[in-house]
């Protein structure tokens, strides 16, 4: 499998099911690569997998894809310790790979089941941008007949927050889109008297030049009961990597 086929397969996986995480699509592609690999040694197999992961990372540089590749590589090393014969090793890896994919496809449902109990009736929830996991949690909570309202940050430049708001509207959940302003502007407390803070959809704070600055989060945060966010990645120290703001 050469680079073009690899990239094409990855893109096809992403297109086929837009709901899957990019890490899952990457692992599917790597599994396919493994099936078609014609190497004779385990060392050769590892090298070609490292090369494949690099190709995929060039297509989609998110943390998820590179860590999926790492995981797969580790997977190979562990399996190769148990079975010395390459063809037997490959067969076992393919089986386990399929099993692994099955298990992780259940993960969003599990997260939703564990998390929806944290949402109580009358809660106001703040979330950031468009996250499929958070959407599942909110869907599950709505299905349990809980009443809650959601504030979503608009999350420019791709206005993914608006997409989230659309989906939530379809679920009959009251949703409000909140502006997120550039974080590096200073918060100036000069607000023009002509436009007092109305609702959170209006720009609230202006600096002396009249540009919109300052974070509207100050006003939303006081009203919010719970903040739920997804994550691109979780690092070893327990911190999360997420979209800016």
């Amino acid at each position, binding site marked *: 499998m050469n680079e073009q086929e690899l990239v094409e397969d990855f893109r096809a996986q992403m297109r086929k099911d837009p709901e899957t995480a990019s890490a899952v699509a990457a692992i599917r592609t790597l599994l396919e690569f493994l099936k078609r690999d014609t190497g004779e040694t385990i060392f050769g197999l590892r090298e070609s997998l490292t090369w494949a992961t690099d190709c995929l990372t060039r297509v989609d540089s998110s943390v998820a894809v590179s860590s999926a590749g790492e*995981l797969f590589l580790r997977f190979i090393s*562990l*399996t190769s310790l148990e079975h010395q014969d390459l063809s037997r090793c490959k067969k*076992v890896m393919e089986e*386990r790979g399929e*099993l*692994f994919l099955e*298990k992780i496809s259940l993960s969003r449902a599990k997260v939703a089941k564990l998390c929806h*109990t*944290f949402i109580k009736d009358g809660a106001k929830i703040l979330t950031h941008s468009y996250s499929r996991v958070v959407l599942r949690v909110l869907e599950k909570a709505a299905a349990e007949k809980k009443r809650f309202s959601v504030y979503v940050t608009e999350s420019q430049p791709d206005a993914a927050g608006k997409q989230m708001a659309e989906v939530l509207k379809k679920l009959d959940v009251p949703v409000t889109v909140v502006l997120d302003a550039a974080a590096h502007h200073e918060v100036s407390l000069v607000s023009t008297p002509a436009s007092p803070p109305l609702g959170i959809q209006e720009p609230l704070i202006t600096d002396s030049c009249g540009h919109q600055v300052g974070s509207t989060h100050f006003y939303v945060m006081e009203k919010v009961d719970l903040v739920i966010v997804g994550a691109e990645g979780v690092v070893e120290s327990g911190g999360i990597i997420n979209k800016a703001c």
Partner: protein
Amino acid sequence: MPGADRETELSGRTEAFLSELKRGAPGSGPLRGSYETARKTSALLRRITAQARWSNAGELMDIIRKEGRRMTAAQPSETTVGNMVRRVLKIIREEYARLKGSSEETDQQESLHKLLTSGGLSEENFRQHFPPLKANVIEAINELLTELEGTTDNIAMQALEHIHSNEVIMTIGRSRTVLEFLKDAARKRKFHVIVAECAPFCQGHEMATSLSKAEIETTVIPDAAIFAVMSRVNKVIIGTQTVLANGGLRAVNGTHTLALAAKHHSTPLIVCAPMFKLSPQFPNEEDTFHKFVSPHEVLPFTEGEILSKVNVHCPVFDYVPPDLITLFISNIGGNAPSYIYRLMSELYHPEDHDL
């Protein structure tokens, strides 16, 4: 028919236990008798295992889960009942796995490593029949009961490491565990105890009486004086009703105040809690977190005029966040609050968290 007799006797006992739970924990007062409740629950579960009709582990687990749900519904604030049921369910799973011959690893918490390396799905439906299962499970429950009996002594044995001579210890309300802990230390050390009375039930008074009978110098203070006195205190040692999954506590009301005062003065806060109090609940989850009792204790009904104009609440429990706690002392030793999640994975199976 002997079978039917046994079943009616069993359901009779279960009903008796349920009504006892509904009325209030064995003994009076909201906190007294956690140990009693745990012991009675385990004994009842042992009886159910021995006398109910079941042919494989799956059926037994269903019966126990059903009874467990009934018992927790009777008194939701009494979490030791649910904890014991979960322990027994874990025991059944382990015994089944042992008899089946599969290694214990397949049953443990899921981790990334296990996801990658385990062959075959962990889809166990526990339907195989093993004759020695009944005896094994009953024996394991007996071991659990023995462990329960020894918890207070195990905790008290660690007292000398934590209490030093001429120290001033503060505590709140009445806890059987803390009482034994302090009495054990008093055999070899001389120290002073300040007890916050913990209105409106004022169980602190009984605690002070018991402590002074053990020849420990005791002072009782009202709850409002906690912050004022805290600067003179070396350590705070408290008991609790429940230890939550995030390392936080559900303890008698007034404990959060005590914990905040201790944090402000950088005084270590030690919680003496046996393992059966560890519950897989999180603080935000259920609406049954708070329990309210009659406001008669706060404002007696004799003050009739005021009562029509005023809302009176008398909550029983307080939530203490894990960052205010320094150390948990349990029958298995001392642990930091951040380690609680690990202990939980050893005691309960993740699928049993929701009964």
